[in-house]
């Protein structure tokens, strides 16, 4: 895997016609999709800027593939509008849209050689023969399959077939490439390898990629923007960092990594210009950044990532300004790189703690049954929608 260029520090964005201003490439406006009386997509709107690597992430059945298929033209929305480069394409069939798709099972034509598969789109558009030949050869070079040009799809491995599917779509120089779980059928090692390759190709050619996946690590490692979908709607979208550090819903907080979620009753009046205060079910005070709770009235739910939390013995003093909860270690697991603890508070809250393995012997660790203080920097506290039941 050497012909793809080294990844540069900052992703290159192609200059747009507007002279650097971000341009909307794909746009869905109030899209609904119903099958009979079952709603698959309910009022979904999204904007994808040109040159972005955009991931639709969610569990199976969340509507992410349906969304992609509506962009590709394989499904018609029940209502709403699909725009490509500002043009309404809602009613256009797939062959009249300037996007190409890499299908989940690749859907390579079994009766055609690798070469012919890649040339298929160009031949349909009556591109000049020499030009077709040149572009196919170039594309096969990019995905490093030149030596397999004469093979039939049935003679390829999964990774090779995936690259043929990619080449077959990209050779048409689409405005945007749609990828439906393109790495879903591959083993883990190959997936990681192809993720890097896919990202590098996207940077090199600079077109918009819309990537559907249920693998959060895949989405985080590749995408500029991730939209987390659940139940036919986008829960939250943003960069991997946005979603991980500042999830806005319980679903996002637990779909991307894991979170400790605690229901909190806010106390009236702000503590200072920065923080607000509330109490947990254990009647312990916690603080959180005021602006993160904006727009929420009544009970809220706060969260913190397990690796942001530290444990202290009862006779130790946690850093001033930390949120501190008290509980008992229920389980302590040594995982080599990390130590993981499950702590239960008297009010029944269960908290996960992941500590780096810095000590090197069991003296500094906590065993089951030990009373501990669970502490974290109040700035690391995020606020999700007001909760009613436990996390």
């Amino acid at each position: 895997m050497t012909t793809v260029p080294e990844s540069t520090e900052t992703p290159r964005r192609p200059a747009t016609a507007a002279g650097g201003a971000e341009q909307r490439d794909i746009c869905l406006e109030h899209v609904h999709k119903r099958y009979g009386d079952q709603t698959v997509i309910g009022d979904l709107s999204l904007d994808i800027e040109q040159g972005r690597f955009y991931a639709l992430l969610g569990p199976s059945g969340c509507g992410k593939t349906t969304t992609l298929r509506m962009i590709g033209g394989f499904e018609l929305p029940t209502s709403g509008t699909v725009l490509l480069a500002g043009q309404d394409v809602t009613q256009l069939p797939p062959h009249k849209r300037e996007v190409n798709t890499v299908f989940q099972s690749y859907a390579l034509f079994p009766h055609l050689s690798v070469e012919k598969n890649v040339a298929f789109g160009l031949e349909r558009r009556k591109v000049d023969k020499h030009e077709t030949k040149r572009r196919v050869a170039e594309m096969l070079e990019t995905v490093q399959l030149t030596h397999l040009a004469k093979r039939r799809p049935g003679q390829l491995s999964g990774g090779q077939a995936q690259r043929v599917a990619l080449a077959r779509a990209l050779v048409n120089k689409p405005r945007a490439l749609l990828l439906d779980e393109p790495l879903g059928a591959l083993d883990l090692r190959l997936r990681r390898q192809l993720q890097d390759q896919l990202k590098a190709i996207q940077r090199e050619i600079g077109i918009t990629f819309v990537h559907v996946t249920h693998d959060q690590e895949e989405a985080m490692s590749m995408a500029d923007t991730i939209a987390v979908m659940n139940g036919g709607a986008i829960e939250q979208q943003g960069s991997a960092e946005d979603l991980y550090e500042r999830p806005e819903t319980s679903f996002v907080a637990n779909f991307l990594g894991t979170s400790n979620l605690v229901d909190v009753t806010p106390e009236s009046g702000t503590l200072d210009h920065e923080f607000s205060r509330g109490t947990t079910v254990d009647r312990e005070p916690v603080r959180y950044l005021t602006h993160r709770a904006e727009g929420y009235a009544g009970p809220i739910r706060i969260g913190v990532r397990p690796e942001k939390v530290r444990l202290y013995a009862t006779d130790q003093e946690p850093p001033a300004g930390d949120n501190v909860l008290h509980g008992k270690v229920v389980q302590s697991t040594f995982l080599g790189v990390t130590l993981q603890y499950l702590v239960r508070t008297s009010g029944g809250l269960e908290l996960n703690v992941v500590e780096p393995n810095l000590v090197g012997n069991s003296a500094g660790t906590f065993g089951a049954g030990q009373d501990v203080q669970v502490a974290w920097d109040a700035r690391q506290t995020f606020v999700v929608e007001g909760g009613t039941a436990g996390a």
Partner: protein
Amino acid sequence: MSLSRRRRMLPWWFALPGLLWLIVFFAIPILNQVSVSLMSGDPEKGYELTWTFSTYWDAIRDYHAQFTRSFGYAGAATLIDFVIAFPLAYFIAYKAGRFKGLWLLLVILPFFVSQVMRTASWQLILNDQGWLVARMQDVGVVSDDGRFLATGKAVIFGISYNFLPFMVLPIYATLDRIDRRLIEAASDLYCSRWTAFRKVTLPLAVPGIFAGSLLVFIPACGDYINSSILGSSNTTMIGNVIQSKFLNVLDYPTAAALSFILMGVILLGIAIYGRVLGTKNLTELAG
């Protein structure tokens, strides 16, 4: 016997019943008939092996008209069946939805009745005083004073009718197996529905079309029931000749020679047909 040796022998044990079957019911009868075809003599005194190759030349000289007619009828019936079966199979595979099973049942339902019975019923339906022939005269398929029964058309019709399911089923099976996403991929790559059909569906259906054509054409070439029930002495097919040589005239050498000529011509025809459709496609897509 060592374990590895026994392992190596295992496939042969599995093949044994089939192999025995082939030897007893195919290889031996074929060799026997080859020797019969080279015999001379007459039904009274019996036949003995005299290596009389001239039987073959005489058979071709005397019956080339029936051969030509058989291939013509069988070819026409195959073509008609293809034209009817492809859209039908396409409909069942893609549009019949939950009624697929019912449609397939309807296709094979006529097989529950014996072929002779079915053909005899057509004889009744197609008889000269019948309603159907009158209507056909109205639209001009049959001339006003003419008849349909006892013509070549009636025989071709009968063959087409009797062998239609053999064309429908293999085409249905290949169409049904085509991954729907391939059609979507074609449409993604700038194919209209018609182009997608031409460039993807049709090439992928070739193995089914090939199988269906053989299943219709081969038995149709040797068929004698349709000609004897729906035809006349002017529509005699090679199957009728072989049947009468074997069972009525008891001229076994000529009957055997005719059978081998028929077999040879069909094998040659299949080889050419397969080459035209592309054997590479057939073997690779079948897998």
